[in-house]
């Protein structure tokens, strides 16, 4: 079981992580605005993450930390 955490204020909402997640666990949270004014990427608290780190590998801003 993996776990991802977002440094949300660095996120620019580009969506590359959304596309990269093989489980489709990431979404752009259109209900939130971060410090930069972007809708940041997010995932559910109990998302069944497998810890593959594909999302983090595609992130241009090093927003995502992955643990396993």
């Amino acid at each position: 079981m993996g776990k991802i955490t977002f440094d949300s204020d660095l996120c620019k909402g580009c969506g590359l992580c959304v596309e990269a997640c093989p489980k489709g666990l990431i979404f752009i949270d259109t209900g939130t605005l971060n410090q930069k004014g972007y809708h940041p990427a997010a995932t559910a608290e109990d998302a069944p993450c497998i810890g593959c780190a594909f999302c983090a590998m595609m992130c241009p801003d090093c927003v995502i930390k992955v643990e396993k």
Partner: protein
Amino acid sequence: MIVFDKPKCLKDAPMHYCPGCAHGLVHRIVAQAVDELDIQDKTIGVAPVGCAVFAYNYFDVDMVEASHGRAPAVATGVKRADPSRIVFAYQGDGDLASIGMTETVHTAARGENLTVIFINNAIYGMTGGQMAPTSLPGQITQTSPYGRDVNTVGYPVKVCELLATLEAPYYIERVAVNSVKNVRRAEKAIRKAFQNQIEGKGYSFVEVVAACPTNWKMKPVDANRWVEEQMIPYYPLGVFKDKDEQK
């Protein structure tokens, strides 16, 4: 256990790049290579003119800012002054293949023991999307509103292929960062380009085919698809020269 975290060689400063810009991703890959090879204390980077002009704000290593296109010349000077340092130039396609083509070719021809990272996004990003020497045939840019006309402005330059005709370069590879699979290959190539320098093998050049979603006027995900469908067919990925293989 931490599977992935920001490399320690990247500062905490938020990067100014546009959403989905490949520069940030390539910065991460370079920083990770420096971390893994444990060379942070002796690495000196040379930043270009272009969107990566502020690279010195992001890499936590000593940095020099070169004037437009001159990064390989500056890097040559730094490396020759102190060969114990690991020196890399980081450049866009306008910088490296247009105004800086002379320095690019002669640095490679001399076989300087350097690492050059080349971001080919087929456009001038920083100045607002003008045609680059690498813009594709038919590509619409600010200065080719009807598409690049190869009959008047010629064909895009394939830099890896061009440099691979020279005797001196040790290692030349083209990679992309538009998918997880390609990012993995890019990580390996960039690491090797630094490892070669550590071992004193000579000039190592990695071209990264990369997206500029803003000036391509595309969403980041669509831009990565465009890399796959349009850019990679023109700029095939792979190793163009590797003297390791010739032994």
